[in-house]
């Protein structure tokens, strides 16, 4: 299943659908990094609003995406984690440490704006 990746200025937005397979996640990881390189994006927002479960593989993949994108000098923000999903994640010890998070797309963009302002 292809995950749509949209471009909004210097930001790429990838919206997860529910129930992504491990193969989908791997494909997405490579795809996102390729796009960041090609389009010279400064940031990626991964919107997981539609995910109602987050297992350890998905969580690890998100962290790897963030790390790989940081190596390209770009920022990653994960948005839209649902309360129930967040609760389940921390109980499993999946805290997405080192990865920026925000409530939703709007907050994610606001966070990036702030960040770009201060670093420019």
């Amino acid at each position, binding site marked *: 299943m292809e995950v749509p990746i949209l471009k909004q200025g210097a930001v790429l937005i990838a919206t997860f659908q529910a129930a992504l397979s491990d193969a989908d996640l791997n494909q997405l990881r490579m795809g996102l990094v390729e796009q960041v390189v090609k389009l010279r994006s400064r940031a990626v927002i991964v919107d997981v609003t539609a995910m109602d479960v987050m297992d350890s593989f998905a969580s690890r993949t998100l962290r790897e995406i963030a790390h790989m994108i940081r190596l390209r000098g770009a920022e990653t923000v994960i948005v839209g984690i649902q309360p129930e999903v*967040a*609760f389940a994640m921390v109980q499993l010890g999946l*805290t997405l440490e080192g990865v920026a998070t925000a409530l939703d797309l709007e907050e994610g963009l606001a966070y990036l704006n702030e960040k770009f302002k201060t670093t420019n």
Partner: protein
Amino acid sequence: MAKRNDTSKETTETLNSQVAELAHSEAPSELLRELVAHLRQNRTQLREEWVVRITETRLLTAMTKEEIFAEATSVYDSYVEALETEAFEALQAYARNLSERIIPRGVETHEVVGIVLLLRDVLARSLFAKYQNDFKKLNRILDAYEPAANRIANTVAVGFVQERERVIRQQQEAIRELSTPVLQVRERLLILPIIGVIDPQRARQLTEQLLRGIRTNRAKVVVIDITGVAAMDLTVANNLVQTVEASRLLGATVIVTGLSPEIAQTLVTIGVDLGKMNTVGDLQGGIEQAERLLGYKVEKLAEPR
């Protein structure tokens, strides 16, 4: 010799009458049918008698005469149907349904059990009256009636108690929710004042409520004040850390305020990673820091009047 003959004559007589009895005896199900038919035929009269005894015994005083009559009718019919079909699950469902209606009216357990037992007695008396001339038949009818009637009384009582327990659980849940409000004091700023004893269940409920509150109010900062919490164990301390982590996943920063010296000691002893927690001494300090984080500046313009 003569004696033996007498005893053997007695024995034969007893045997003969027993055989005669067996020839006359009906199957239990047939007895029940006969019994149910009798109860249906005399429905009006028996129900009336029952209502009179309910009033005499001063039960169901919270209900009006019309209400008692209406409920008595449906209970009577359900009772007789349960005797006939032996469908006790249906009866239990009926009992819970009835309880749902009458518990808010203030009807007590002893009243419900009382009226069912009265009905059992009224029906038994009518059986005595009907079969008074055939003692053996009466015994057989009672053999069929009694276990079924007792099971009915039991089923109704259990159904009633289960409904009460359900209501109590519901109320406990409501109290728990009320006692941990999530309050918005500024745009994007929530306060969660925790008071009293936190058990693992309450801790979990607090976390869920807070996370929902963060999403609903789009909060960026949360101040959790635990001034009112006396003691904390490992489970609850870990839950607090998890709450902080989960809040971050929703984009909110948590400031914990009001840690007593005892709790601070507990957390250090347990080895909770305090680096993960943003703590400030008291609630005032916590709110001030939260305002700074949100870009507020509070300025005093005049003296209080």
